[in-house]
């Protein structure tokens, strides 16, 4: 009798496990719209040996300066950072000149008369955008607010829409390959995602159609024109919308994570130390346990 009950119980457990495993949801329609697929890009700073491509960061800064800086600040990045190791590594004198000539002045003070005053930026000053505050930005931008770009790559990601049984494997793959570039992939996709609105799409006034932006309506007009901005002869790449987008995304990735190169370099040293020590500990453990039967 007891045996029979055990068998029944065991069978019940198996059936329950199979039923729950087989029938989990396989389709997702969370935000109401159909999920947008965003292609993963090949970034020099991705993966375990990732490092920034110096000429690319410099081109990217040029795109930021000539295009983005018209509306967006970069206020958590300081001019000095542009000359520091691990970034675009511009010549310090050139950065000093750049700071001095930056159109958005630093408000300083109060001076001895008790008044606030404006002065040109120094190496130790942040890279400011054109607006003093959000209200001013919205007033100038038809109600829209161009966000500060210092963290934009880290603050954006790609939503997962795959069914759970694929999600598990994608998670494992991303952990094992060290995938952290969803933000860069997303920003690149937005910059290159402008298109004519499809027939029948209700575009609100002052908005622009974008293939990957959530809801497909974005206040920012297409920032980079089809032919791109003018790169210098020795910039290392031919200018195009695609190239400009890629370069400025790389630059912003650095701006979001200026210690990325140092982090990954130290990471390998740490991993090496841990692996060697683990092997030694394994050998030690085997030797110690050889003294007793186990």
């Amino acid at each position, binding site marked *: 009798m*007891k*045996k029979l*009950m*055990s068998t029944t*119980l*065991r069978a019940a*457990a*198996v059936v*329950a*496990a199979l039923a*729950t*495993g087989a*029938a*989990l*949801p396989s389709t*997702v*329609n*969370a*935000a109401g719209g159909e999920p947008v697929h965003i292609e993963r890009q090949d970034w020099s700073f991705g993966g*375990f040996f990732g490092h920034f491509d110096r000429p690319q960061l410099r081109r990217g800064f040029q795109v930021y300066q000539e295009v983005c800086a018209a509306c967006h600040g970069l206020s*958590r990045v300081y001019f000095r*950072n542009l000359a520091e190791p691990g970034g675009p590594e511009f010549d310090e004198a050139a950065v000093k000149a750049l700071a001095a000539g930056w159109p958005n002045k630093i408000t300083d003070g109060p001076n001895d008369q008790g008044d606030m005053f404006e002065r040109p930026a120094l190496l130790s000053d942040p890279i400011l955008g054109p607006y003093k505050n959000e209200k001013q930005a919205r007033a100038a931008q038809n109600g829209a607010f161009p966000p500060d770009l*210092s*963290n934009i790559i*880290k*603050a*954006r*990601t790609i939503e997962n829409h795959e069914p*759970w049984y694929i*999600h598990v494997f994608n998670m494992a793959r991303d*952990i094992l390959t*060290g*995938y*952290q570039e*969803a*933000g860069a992939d997303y920003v690149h996709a937005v910059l290159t995602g402008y298109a004519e609105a499809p027939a029948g799409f209700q575009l609100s006034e002052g908005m622009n159609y974008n293939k990957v932006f*959530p809801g497909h309506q974005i206040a920012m007009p297409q920032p980079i024109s089809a032919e791109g901005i003018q790169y210098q002869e020795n910039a290392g790449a031919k200018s195009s919308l695609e190239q400009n987008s890629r370069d400025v995304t790389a630059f912003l990735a650095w701006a*979001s994570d*200026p*210690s990325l190169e140092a*982090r*990954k370099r*130290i*990471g*390998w040293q*740490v*991993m090496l130390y*841990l*692996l060697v020590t*683990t092997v030694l*500990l*394994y050998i*030690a*453990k085997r030797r*110690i*346990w050889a*003294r*007793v*039967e*186990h």
Partner: protein
Amino acid sequence: MAQHESTYVPKSAIAKWWDQRLPIMRLMHDSFVDYPTPRNLNFLWTFGGILTFVLVAQIVTGIVLAMHYQPSAEDAFNSVENIRRNVNYGYMIRNFHAVGASMFFIAVYIHIFRGLYYGSYKAPREILWILGVLIFLVMMATAFMGYALPWGQMSFWGVTVITNLFSSLDGIFPGLGTAIVEWLWGGYAVTGVTLNRFFSLHYLLPFVILGLVILHVWALHVAGQNNPTGLDVKTKSDTVPMSPYAISKDFLWMFVFLIMFAWFVFFLPDYLGHADNYIEANPLVTPPHIVPEWYFLPFYAILRAIPDKLGGVVAMFAAIAILVFVPWLDTSRVRSSKYRPIYKWFFWLFAFSCLALGYLGSKPAEGVYVFWARIFTFYYFAHFLIVMPIVGILETPKKLPRSITEAVLGEGGAATPKGAAAAPERR
């Protein structure tokens, strides 16, 4: 186990002098060097040591971070950015601390499931187990408040959603919930005042955990460790001294754990977090999906599975509180699931349910997700309230080895162990 003879011999005159006045070295020696540990412990028994390490690491990195952090609504986000960008190695300390919280939960979940599988909660280890549940609870509170501190969008909205849960107590006694929520917030909304008190408590609670850990280890050393067979230690040949035997395993597996830890700290620092937390808190903009940290997701799924707000809150807290009663809900005569042919299946079904609830907690509470969250929530509670008592009575356990020694060395346990732990007496 704890009653074993002290073998500490002070080696120097100073050590002797000290030992006669405050025998702390003797205590450490008897607790962590010559302490008898079952000879068959597997790697799952190294997580206690790993957790102690992670706790100390969190306290150390946390103290350094607190030197640079500003707990105010205006400065919190900026100060974390300053740590990331300008403080020497600040990015590394911050990553250690943020990733460390996740590692703490990975280790604690393995530790809890190990206890559940091998019946480590059964007599005489009930107090030990309940202390563990308390540690888990305080850990969750600490992690929740810690996540608020960067004052990003997810910090702010996570605090708003979770503290708001207490308002459901209005359903029991009108005004009670509102009063509690306002008391938690220090006002009528989540503000810098809330952040400031969370910081204060986030600094305090780890030391409460440390105190509970000391009690936990004390209780462990009174009852002695459980082991994969679930059998009691009967003779000296069932054990080996902690040092160097158990210690050598502890260190090996701690370093294996550290490899994973470092992998995340240096190569995937943001993987376990949420991108929205790199946007400064804004009470006027609600993120499309408010999702707690991964280690809360199963409980979040339970909360949302119940159609009634108060019911959801009660279920969520009950999901943790029920662990306290596990020693009495399990009616089995044997501890280890290794010898429980039926319960073993239910154990893995329970583990699967927890993972599934975690997945469902990360998804919006709508449609088919709610349906499955309800199924798994039902099983979560049914496992404790129905399966544990009934299977324990009905099931016929497999034949147990007569002793740990026999389990290790086979029938007869013939060979006498060669090492220091060798004991002539045989059963």
